[in-house]
């Protein structure tokens, strides 16, 4: 895992007790922990009405810590990786454990979020079905056959709303569909056991 010099400098600022006061550091970590679960729409902003030099330092520290967490999650880093980086940036044991603790706490969440970024085909998330018994239609009498209406709920990349894919099928076709899905499930279960 490589961090840019800019981020490394920012981390050194974050670890420097003479630049970032303890209470400012607590604020930074508080905002960070609040915003990480809502990376798409971070709504809590840093609000530190102090001298401009400290404000810039706090912003740099915040940005660098966020960058560290995202990069570390992207690389699936563990505690020792984070500790090594923070020690290089001369973090005090208190601040070091605070950053490490919140990273480990949010790592899975960040990885889920990062996994959702990118292009992928619509993802099936749910299914609805309806069973009709067709008696006749305008062109045929005595149809008398069951008709299934299937509604696949899908989610497109980067969107939260669901889209429908609707189709109808006869009982034989649904049996065929379920048979194929069962085969696929078996294969996927084998892979998942690896």
């Amino acid at each position: 895992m490589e961090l840019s010099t800019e981020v490394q400098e920012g981390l050194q600022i974050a670890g420097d007790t003479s630049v970032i006061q303890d209470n400012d550091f607590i604020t930074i970590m508080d905002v960070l922990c609040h915003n990480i679960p809502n990376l798409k729409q971070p709504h809590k902003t840093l609000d530190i009405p102090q001298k401009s030099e400290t404000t810039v330092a706090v912003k740099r520290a915040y940005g660098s810590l966020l960058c560290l967490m995202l990069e570390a999650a992207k690389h699936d880093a563990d505690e020792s990786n984070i500790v090594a980086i923070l020690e290089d940036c001369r973090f005090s044991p208190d601040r070091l454990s605070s950053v490490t603790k919140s990273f480990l706490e949010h790592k899975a969440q960040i990885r889920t979020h990062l996994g959702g970024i990118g292009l992928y085909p619509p993802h099936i998330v749910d299914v609805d079905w309806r069973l009709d018994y067709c008696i006749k239609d305008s062109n045929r009498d005595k149809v008398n056959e069951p008709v299934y209406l299937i509604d696949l709920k899908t989610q497109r990349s980067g969107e939260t709303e669901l889209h429908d894919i609707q189709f109808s099928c006869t009982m034989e076709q649904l049996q065929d569909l379920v048979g194929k899905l069962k085969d696929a499930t078996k294969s996927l279960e084998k892979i998942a056991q690896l």
Partner: protein
Amino acid sequence: MLLVLEDSHKQHLGWLSKLDLEVVNEFIRMCVEFITKGATTNQRSYQVAAQRLGVTPDTVRSAISALVHLLTTSSKLALTQLDFTDSVLALGFSSEASTALLAVYRDRGGELRRLLTTLGIDLPHYCNLTWRADVQVASRTLYRQLEPILLVKLHLGQCGEQNALLQTDLTTLVHLTNTLERALDEIKTPHCRRIIRHIK
């Protein structure tokens, strides 16, 4: 059940029934062509037939239309072979001609019924499903993943002309399979069986 046709159809078929068996057979052939290839292809053969019989092409066209109507209506009502023969005899056809018509009805009935199905309210129809099992290993934003993914291609439409490329994960796949299996089981419940038994 005897087939009830409108007077105009009866008139056209009545004209046809008085012709020789050979001619009737030729009309049946043209009628099958009409059903399988459409109305526009055989305009020329109508004219030839009209010239030979000494009638207007419209008479030939009407007779073919009436014959097509006879076959489609019989398929629509799902007439039994016996009812079909009785209906045809009642229209004045000879027993030889009715045998020839019955042969067409028997051989082409299923196809006609399928064609009629396509005319109805048409939701995309399940045709086939092909799948591929993948493991997502890494992406630009996330390294070191191990995520089993199923890529699914859903073929919809009459012969799979509409495709949908989708994906899903194992948990959803299990849920999907179980839900659809429950849907299949539903048809075996007493409630469904009772409905199916009573609607005949």
